[in-house]
């Protein structure tokens, strides 16, 4: 993966930058010891690494503003960072950039059950937001599988989703307001505890902008009362096609489960070997979860089972208690871990129209043969967000590159059938160069115009999202203006 070469002028001015930052930050907020900055060399896309110039770990919006103002004046790129779990290389530094980590900003600022909102500092982890309102039986809905580690900051930047977003939506649908620090240090408040911020929907563009428009330091999030209960059903089929048709029939029938997860045979086998959840060995497995009171759950499950029966399932297992429910989820939840046991893997994240599922799975199978790399499919079937896991051997020369090529083919396929390159993980550096497959240069120009307005000097996370060839002129012009 190509990254722009570091600017020697910035490297040469490191001591000066450190002195300026040290003047506004407490001593422990500035990290430059290479042993300590190593932890910031990469994010969840660990194949790509680069030590940053410096790491700063501010504790307040004011400190973030001071840091950005100084970096802006000095013309130094800044890479915002939450917990570093991005799978797209979104938080990957360059050698001439400052990593601005918000992990120390993790306080709950206000909990308001009457208005059903919580305000937190953005470094707070996703799960601990729900944790903060659990006492009142409330929760924060978007639940990425990484929720134990990932921060609200990263969730907002990537517009992250989760298993339950079929019913509750993704981050953007649950975000009401932010405190955003612009690259020049200006602090702006957008939205708040009321619905729909005034004026243009700036909150909507900031969410999913991958740290390129500003640094989010605080967020107002919608919280919801927990349903009375939830229960999954597990249904096995002897073909992917039939499982796909079943999903679409359930949706057409007006049932809207909170989650519909899909696993194919290679994935089932790996999970079974790893977690021993007692999954049936079949071609395709659906885990469908519904919510409500006991009676409501029973009613919805009955409808789902009726529909599934019409498709001759090879297995149909309803959870009758919490224990069985946990067992049904066990395999699915350990899917990534299971894969990690067998092999190195790359996790793709394209979305397709639900109706194209059988076709896409068949094509992936063919590509897998062609590239000689195994694939396991696990994904959110209700909304067509696929996570094919391509297995490769990082120690085998050329295997990573082969895997990336294969991955690119699959993502192009997603676009070809009317879908997109990434459903929830973001573009980062990983899918940067494929952007021109989904969008025309003109479409991308419109996005670049937004970046120009928020960050005219192109200093925030500059080498991400857009193909370098497309952003090059702007990055260079900004440098020349220095």
């Amino acid at each position, binding site marked *: 993966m190509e990254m722009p070469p570091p600017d020697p002028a910035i490297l040469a001015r490191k001591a000066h930058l450190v002195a300026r930052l040290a003047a506004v930050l407490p001593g422990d907020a500035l990290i430059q010891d290479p042993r300590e900055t190593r932890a910031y060399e990469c994010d969840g896309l660990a194949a790509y690494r680069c030590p940053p110039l410096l790491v700063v770990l501010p504790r307040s919006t004011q400190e973030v503003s001071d840091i950005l103002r100084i970096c802006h004046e000095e013309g130094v790129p800044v890479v915002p960072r939450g917990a570093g779990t991005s799978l797209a290389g979104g938080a990957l530094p360059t050698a001439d950039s400052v990593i601005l980590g918000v992990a120390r900003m993790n306080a709950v600022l206000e909990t308001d059950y*009457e*208005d059903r909102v919580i305000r937190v500092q953005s470094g707070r982890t996703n799960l601990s937001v729900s944790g903060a309102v659990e006492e009142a039986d409330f929760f924060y809905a978007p639940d990425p599988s990484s929720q134990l580690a990932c921060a609200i900051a990263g969730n907002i930047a*990537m*517009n992250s*989703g989760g298993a339950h*977003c079929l019913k509750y*939506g993704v981050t953007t*649908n649950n975000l009401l307001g932010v405190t955003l620090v612009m690259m020049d240090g200006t602090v702006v*408040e*957008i939205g708040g*505890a*009321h*619905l*729909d911020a*005034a*004026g*243009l*929907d*700036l909150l*909507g*563009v900031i969410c*999913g*902008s991958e740290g390129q428009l500003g640094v989010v330091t605080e967020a107002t999030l919608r919280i919801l*009362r927990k*349903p009375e209960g939830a229960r999954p059903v597990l249904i096995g089929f002897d073909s992917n096609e039939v499982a796909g048709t079943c999903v*679409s029939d359930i*949706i*057409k029938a*007006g*049932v809207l489960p909170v989650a519909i997860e899909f696993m194919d045979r290679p994935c089932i086998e790996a999970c079974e070997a790893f977690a021993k959840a007692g999954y049936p060995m079949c071609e395709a497995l659906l885990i469908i979860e519904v919510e*409500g*009171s006991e*009676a*409501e759950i029973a*009613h*919805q499950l009955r*409808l789902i089972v009726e529909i599934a029966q019409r498709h001759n399932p090879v297995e149909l297992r309803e959870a009758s208690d919490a224990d069985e429910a946990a067992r049904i989820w066990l395999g699915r939840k350990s899917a990534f871990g299971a894969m990690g046991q067998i092999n190195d893997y790359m996790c793709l994240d394209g*979305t*397709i*129209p*639900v*109706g194209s599922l059988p076709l896409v799975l068949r094509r992936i199978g063919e590509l897998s043969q062609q590239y000689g790399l195994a694939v396991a499919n696990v994904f*959110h079937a209700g*909304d*067509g*967000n696929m996570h094919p896991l391509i297995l490769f051997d990082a120690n085998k020369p050329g295997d990573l590159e082969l895997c990336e090529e294969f991955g690119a083919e699959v993502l192009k396929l997603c676009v070809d059938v*009317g879908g997109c390159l*990434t*459903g*929830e993980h973001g*573009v980062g550096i990983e899918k940067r160069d494929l*952007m021109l497959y989904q969008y*025309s240069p*003109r479409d*991308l120009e*419109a*996005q670049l115009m*937004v970046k*120009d*307005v928020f960050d005219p000097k192109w200093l925030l996370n500059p080498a991400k999202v857009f193909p370098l060839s497309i952003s090059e002129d702007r990055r260079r012009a900004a440098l020349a203006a220095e």
Partner: protein
Amino acid sequence: MNKMLTPQSEAELAECITAAQAPLHIIGGGTRGCAVAGDALTTQGLSGIELYEPGSLTLVAKAGTPLAEIETLLASEGQRMAFEPMDMRSLLGDSGTPTIGGAFAVNSSGPRRIQGGAARDYLLGVRFVDGSGQVIKNGGRVMKNVTGYDLVKLMAGAHGTLGVLSEVSLKVLPIPEASVTVSLAVADLAVAVQAMSAALGSPFDVTGAAYDPAVGLVHIRLEGFAPSVAYRQEKLTADLARFGTAETRQSSEALWKYIGSAAAFVGRTGDVWRISVKPSDAPRLAPQLGAEALQFDWGGGLIWALTPEGADLRTRMAQAGVAGHATLVRGSGETLAALGRFQPQARPLEEISKGLRRRFDPRGLLNPGLMDTDPMTPGRMG
């Protein structure tokens, strides 16, 4: 003499905008009834549903497609637009055929906003022509998509100032089997908001919470499968008994249309304001507004106010120390000129918005002035 442009295709739309020498007033169905100076450009010729996949819950339509046409097709498959686009024709005294493009351009969201989200939350993809005449697409027709910046959200609620939508793709949802409304007799606004908060904070998935002070009723809507609705209705009625006596109505479609379209103010003179606040601020703010009539939706978070002409509700909000925003939905020319249609924004946000308009519409052709909230901008009354 002002012209009327009626492009018949996206390509023609792009030609019209490229060729334009003077400001354009973008019209969908024209039901919004607020004029901007300039030639009229209507999306009437861009009409038709291009794709509908009930099993994927998605529909793609050209921007000028009448909402009614989409609603009819969806209903034939037992589906609907869950954001309840509002119909303001009676309130504004307009006729016309509301379009899907217009509904998204104003981010038109009804009572279900509190549970299912705003119009923008259902918009999956757009095609539009910007002020330079360039055709741009963003998003797509799948439900999860984080590929690049979300210009879809930016276009929703931009009131045509960043581009003219030519095509939209949206997420639709099943029409639930049953819908009931539990109505509680409550005389006091503070108690009404408490009751609505209790309902919205319950596990019973409330999809509407409104208060009509004229009749002293809190309305709570429940939707879903019949047995589930029956169960939740019983539970909720018991839970809410402490706030007032309840009665249940089985068919409530007309009631929620009435609430969503601010029908209570139809035929009455005066300015009409739509105010978004934190629900718990409503009881404090309402008496300060000097309104002749009030209606509350979104659990108290949306206040409709009918006021004597020229009353500046934004100043009253500020005096009450209440955060949020107020849109002057209906006002006389003088009131609009004096107060502006939209809530002025903090300086840096106004700068960003202006910067975006300058980039997307460098010649200032598209509904110029409509979204400017800078008091110095001429023509901002829109």
